[in-house]
């Protein structure tokens, strides 16, 4: 089955075309650019380019998988909205996967995954042999409780390595992998599980203050 994968939960803008079968998951074409401010501009052309490279028409897609974050809101919404609109237009199911799982799933042993949440905070989760056992959360790096984790992975882990005090393996990816997201959704896709509404993992409430009493002008 041909599956479109998108993730915009980090500065990496990811679009990939994957083939999911009982034998396994394979990425046929992928486009990734790293630009924390260009999700709105870059994602759609990247989807188109991945489809074209794989010689796949949108109507050939059987499902859409999207990283649901956590991630900076504005960019995150671009991926989820694009995915939801395509799913709606094509009449195919959409499946959400926590974006941090796109980093944590392939890790063995105990590991912390952290991505940049801006405002000097990180989005984080703890994994035991690829399974999320704590999180996702958003906190200041000093407040992260890595549990039994012996390594840390992700761009947030890299940036705040000092505070987190965990070694960051140099060969691990720092942004969610489209292959992992597709692989994690594969059982649902293959069993024809109904799709789900893509709900962003915001983890933070919107910034909004209720105005006080009316201000006097004189």
């Amino acid at each position, binding site marked *: 089955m041909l599956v479109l994968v998108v993730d915009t939960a980090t500065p990496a803008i990811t679009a990939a075309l994957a083939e999911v079968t009982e034998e396994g998951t394979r990425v046929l074409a992928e486009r990734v650019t790293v630009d924390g401010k260009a999700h709105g501009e870059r994602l*759609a052309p990247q989807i188109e380019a991945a489809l074209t490279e794989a010689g796949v028409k949108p109507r050939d897609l059987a499902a859409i998988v999207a990283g649901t974050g956590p991630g900076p*809101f504005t960019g995150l919404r671009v991926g989820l909205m694009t995915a*939801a609109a395509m799913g709606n237009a094509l009449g195919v199911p959409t499946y959400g996967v926590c974006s941090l799982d796109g980093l944590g799933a392939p890790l063995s042993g105990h590991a912390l995954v952290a991505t940049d949440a801006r405002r000097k905070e990180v989005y984080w989760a703890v994994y035991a042999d690829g399974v999320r056992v704590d999180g996702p959360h958003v906190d200041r790096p000093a407040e992260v409780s890595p549990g039994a984790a012996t390594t840390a992975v992700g761009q947030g882990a890299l940036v705040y390595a000092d505070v987190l005090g965990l070694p960051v393996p140099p060969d691990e990816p720092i942004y969610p992998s489209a292959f992992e997201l597709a692989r994690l959704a594969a059982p649902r896709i293959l069993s024809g599980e109904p799709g789900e509404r893509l709900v962003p993992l915001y983890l933070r409430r919107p910034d909004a203050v209720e105005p006080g009493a009316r201000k006097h002008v004189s």
Partner: protein
Amino acid sequence: MSSVPLVLGIETSCDETGVGIVRGHTLLGESLASSVDEHARFGGVVPEVASRAHLEAMVPTMQRALDQAGVTLADIDAIAVTAGPGLAGALLVGVAAAKGYALAAEKPIYGVNHLAAHVAVDTLEHGPLPEPAIALLVSGGHSSLLLVEDLARGVQPLGATIDDAAGEAFDKVARLLGLPFPGGPWIDKAAREGDGASITFPRGLTGPRDQAEHRFDFSFSGLKTAVARWVEARERDGERVPVNDVAASFQEAVCDVLTAKAIAACRDRGVDTLVIGGGVAANSRLRVLAEERAAKYGIAVRVPRPKLCTDNGAMVAALGSHLVAAGVAPSRLDLPADSAMPLTSVVA
């Protein structure tokens, strides 16, 4: 299948998620979801709250509009979306949705100007817009006077507010009178029971000196302050505030300036069509006063029905339909949301 293209429009520039479907000048279906109630307690639109609401509302709103029009996405020939101006995060949700729909349906996308769409929507009610026309756009975020010579190519700004937008002034004055948000409709209602001539509030930028530099500009912040001072003085003296009279007198001051400048612009440019759009165009006094004054000079006033004046998807579809008919090239898939999109660009 009709040969006139079927155009879908998506609007998310502020707190309304709108989808409209238009063929030619005919509105076939539309749906609107509003997050206004979520903003009410903040006394104004909270951008992040609006953006979250757009994401949630988009697909159901789309489905309702399609169902109402009795068409499917496969029937759509082009997709138009508000690219700006507006709230950056909110715009981005609509643009992302439009791109998703356009990609999936393999249809062209037009990223369009929200203000030009407020002008274009009138065609759904009154047919093709005679050009040139003067447009008065008055909403919660904008107050502009525009010269429309060719809506498909661009609009020429003649003037705009130098501080608060007209709708913003309505909302702020409503707040200080203890009326709910958004205040425009409440002021309109209260004013019907009041006397608009009872209090003389200032008319911004109408002095002789303003003729040179600000002939077609507006200013409402002084008016708002004057109303606040007037109300506070009554409160300080322990007097009852005549809410209906204050509302009517404030509304009179706004409508007086808006219509006077709009008519002056028509006369200055030798234009005999005035189209009024934006949320404040729903104001009953503005409609009456504009028609009264325009009639003296043989100027035709076109105001779409109130539902089309406030932000909606139909207006975006109407502009999209106009652009497709005029043979304007679509936008590229990398089109950005532009919170400060200039009026001189109708398509991004």
